[in-house]
């Protein structure tokens, strides 16, 4: 079960949507942190205990791919599960993300049900309650 979740997306609306779906799932985590880009996300990861990262790919400053690469090279962060939620259409990026060990990829646009199916077990809720 993920007690502390970090949402990394430059869209405030998407961060709010993801927050809402997490609540709808009945997950009730202790903390939901938010970051607007990869650099901000890494800083949050350095300051807080995080059990699950939900990250976009296209963001200003630092995207989700580079953030995940940097997490992999940091022993304190490399085992934190990462799920990518992105509109990125590139098959090559998905291959790279697989190699980096990301736990899942949700394509935007996504439905609340699609989110729960993919992320439910990481949140500790049933994928189809």
């Amino acid at each position, binding site marked *: 079960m993920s007690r502390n979740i970090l949402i990394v997306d*430059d*869209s*405030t*609306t*998407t961060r*709010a*949507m993801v927050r*809402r779906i997490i609540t709808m799932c009945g997950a009730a985590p202790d903390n939901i942190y938010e970051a607007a880009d990869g650099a901000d996300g890494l800083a949050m990861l350095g300051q807080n205990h995080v059990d699950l990262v939900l990250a976009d790919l*296209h*963001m*200003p400053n630092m995207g989700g791919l580079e953030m995940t690469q940097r997490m992999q090279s940091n022993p304190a962060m490399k085992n934190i599960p990462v799920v990518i939620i*992105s*509109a*990125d*259409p*590139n*098959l*090559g*990026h998905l291959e790279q993300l697989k190699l980096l060990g990301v736990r899942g990829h949700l*394509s*935007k*646009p*996504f*439905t609340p049900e699609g989110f729960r199916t993919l992320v439910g077990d990481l949140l500790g809720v049933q994928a189809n309650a």
Partner: protein
Amino acid sequence: MLKIHNDHLEASLSDALNVMAFISPMPPEDMAPPTGPALRTRIDFEGVTTGSLELVCPLAFGAMLAANLLGTEPEASDNNASGDALRELLNVTCGTMLRNSGATQRGAIEMGVPTQESFDISNWNTFIESDAVVVDADGCKLAIRMIDGI
């Protein structure tokens, strides 16, 4: 360079509106410009195909879009939320179009971060005459066009 057809653009906008914002776009009753302040949102992409998408719509649509995305009422949306929701809509439309047109199966395409500026509605006709797709989204008129890059 790979040419993406407008049908893919229209289908991708429709898909994004439907799935993320619960809006079923319809053909517009007429092509007259919408009223009120308007925004132009733009996203660039570069790779096996290069170009930009531009979306023009009334600011009021942004408020409705933000409310739909968040499950609230449009009155609760401020200008920041409206702008952000429109940028996300265009980002998702662009990604869907590049994927569904098969473009990304031919090679990599990097999408940029969407930008936004106010749009002088007196330029509406010029905008839509440049091969734009116009739809009615729950009573608001949206125009979207693709600009081929070099």
